[in-house]
């Protein structure tokens, strides 16, 4: 029996089962199961994400220089993060302990473009309908078209922020997809003056829209403070990268882990031996592993990664507008917003602002136009690369044999780091909003809102037309389907 409340019911055979399942033919999909007793009290709540463990097999046996391009095919939503994490690991293999200034700045530019476009998509097109209209508002209105009708500028800005991030990626990676910009040891192209000028032209508009987005989330908190403060909220230990001086650094840094109250568990740890700090537990009911901090053990060592962690656990953000917003966020509601699950959205918008500011600063740095692109050194057999991807800490670890082929690969993606935290969040929501009540679409959407706050990656690098519905089933104790609800996609 687990020590975690609602993880495992005492007598599941006597309970009704509710399944919220996106039925996808791809291996990466999520499902929520709720076991309810005859009085509609929640006895068990679990989020199952089918982690795709064929990553490593896909990579093994390949020449190491192919890996930064290949890993982009693992995930269609954050290919740049995999591209850069792989390159960081393989920098070590080629002995490039220090990149040239041009190479590092171009990679950073690419990374900030990725953060900006990913966060824009998540907030403006996925989460804003819930936040602007309410979690159980009319389903016909609770979509991005409803947002466009009542808030047309928000929908438009979301598309154009996303497009701008994609343009940054295109100029730095060389293509819209399958980019080859970063290579082990550096980059294979710098920015031309024309490319830089084109990106400079719009960057101030992006900063302005990002600031408005931060203010929008703040207004949403102010308008419904009690709900935002408490929705799916729980105390969590945290893990993130930070710069040597404690600043937020989404591209590189040391590992920082803290208790929920901010006390240090470890700080500025070189990720080269991450396995000394992090281990992974297998649970019989889930395909996805549960990472934990070794020093605390598997029961107490679970933690949360991602925007909320990064914004609240850095000492400062090294761009002025974003840092001002961070301080306001941390102080808001006596610090409660910075601990709330819906604070993910506020933190995400602060990171959009930081990314836009960082892009602006980089676009005024002549190193981007330089020609010194590659570094090298003594060949190594192993490399570890860690980056703060849009959804959280991403680890790539490779061992390369004497034939330059990848002999072993290990990847820990942000959704795996957050596995336990997401389960805690849905249990909090289930307890507060679903317990003892008749289930409705609006109530079940509360569960989805909690999951969406984390924006889990579902490994759906394929998506062929036909299947990604969301299916909700109410099943009795004998397993018979009593009712079902399908929210389908064409």
């Amino acid at each position, binding site marked *: 029996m687990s020590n975690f409340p609602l993880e495992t019911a005492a007598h599941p055979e006597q309970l009704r089962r509710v399944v919220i399942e*996106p039925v996808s*033919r*791809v291996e990466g999909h*999520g499902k929520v199961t709720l076991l309810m007793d005859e009085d509609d009290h929640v006895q068990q709540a679990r989020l199952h994400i089918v982690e*795709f463990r*064929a*990553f490593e*097999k*896909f990579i093994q046996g390949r020449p190491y220089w192919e890996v930064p391009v*290949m890993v982009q*095919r*693992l995930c*269609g*939503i954050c*290919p740049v993060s995999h591209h850069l994490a792989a390159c960081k690991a393989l920098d070590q293999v080629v002995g490039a302990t220090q990149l040239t200034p041009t190479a590092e700045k171009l990679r950073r530019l690419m990374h900030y473009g990725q953060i900006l*476009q990913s966060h824009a*998509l*998540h907030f403006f*097109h*996925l989460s804003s*309908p819930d936040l602007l209209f309410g979690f159980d508002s009319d389903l016909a209105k609770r*979509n*991005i*078209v409803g947002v*466009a009708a009542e808030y*047309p500028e928000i*929908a*438009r800005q*979301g*598309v*154009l922020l*996303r*497009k*701008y991030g*994609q343009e940054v990626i295109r100029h730095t990676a060389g293509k*819209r*997809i399958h980019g080859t910009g970063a290579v082990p040891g550096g980059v294979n192209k710098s920015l031309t003056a024309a490319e830089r000028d084109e990106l400079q032209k719009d960057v101030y*508009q*992006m900063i302005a829209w990002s600031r408005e987005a931060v203010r929008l989330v703040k207004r949403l908190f102010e308008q419904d403070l009690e709900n935002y403060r408490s929705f799916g909220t729980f105390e969590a230990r945290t893990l993130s990268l930070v710069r040597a001086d404690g600043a937020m650094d989404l591209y590189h840094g040391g590992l920082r882990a803290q208790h929920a109250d901010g006390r240090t568990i470890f700080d500025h740890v070189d990720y080269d031996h991450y396995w000394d700090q992090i281990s992974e537990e297998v649970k019989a009911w889930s395909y996805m592993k549960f990472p934990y901090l070794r020093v605390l053990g598997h029961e107490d060592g679970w933690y949360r990664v991602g925007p909320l962690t990064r914004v609240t656990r850095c000492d400062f953000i090294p761009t002025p507008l974003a840092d001002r917003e961070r301080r306001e966020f941390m102080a808001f509601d006596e610090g409660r917003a910075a601990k709330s699950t819906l604070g993910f959205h506020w933190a995400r918008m602060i990171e959009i602002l930081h990314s836009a500011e960082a892009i602006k600063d980089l676009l005024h740095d002549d190193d981007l136009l330089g020609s010194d692109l590659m570094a090298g050194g003594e060949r190594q057999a192993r490399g570890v690369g860690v980056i703060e991807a849009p959804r959280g800490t991403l680890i790539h670890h490779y061992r390369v044999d004497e034939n330059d082929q990848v002999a072993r690969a290990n990847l820990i993606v942000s959704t795996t780091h957050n596995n336990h935290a997401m389960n805690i969040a849905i249990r909090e929501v289930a307890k507060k909003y679903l317990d003892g009540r008749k289930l409705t679409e609006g109530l079940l959407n509360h569960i*989805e809102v909690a*999951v*969406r706050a984390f*924006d*889990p*990656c*579902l490994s*759906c*690098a*394929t*998506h*062929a*037309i*036909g*299947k*990604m519905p*969301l299916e909700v089933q109410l099943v009795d104790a004998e397993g018979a389907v009593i009712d079902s609800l399908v*929210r*389908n*996609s*064409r």
Partner: protein
Amino acid sequence: MSVSGGTPAPVLVLAVGNPSRGDDAIGPELAARLEAAALPGVEVITEFQLQVENALDLVGRERVIFVDAGLDTPVPFELRRIEAVPEFLHTSHAISPEAVLATFARVQDGDAPECWVLCVRGESFELGEPLSGAAAAHLEAAWTALGRLLRPEFPA
């Protein structure tokens, strides 16, 4: 930020798919053939999956053809005209061609281009798999249909 830049080709073929995932490579494979054919007035874009910003690729076009693999698609393919449908999912991972059109309507004042979906039946989509034999046959049939759609005199 400008929504469009330059004069786009009147016809856009927007092919979708991951070349490393078995039959999901149908879209990229058709796109590669089309790029090699270099038809005048036809631009080809390949994506892993559709997202909201693809709405901006539609600006200034006369006709857009989305090319993709499908699981429950009739054999060997389905070709259908589509309209805007505001369907968005519970994840940020992908949107449908109809949702791309709906996004276009939100960010643009003008009329949307004529849009078609060429959905080719796939059978297996595992990472690292090659195109299946059945999908290869479906692809050939779809290639002929795509050619006729783009240029009636296109050789069968």
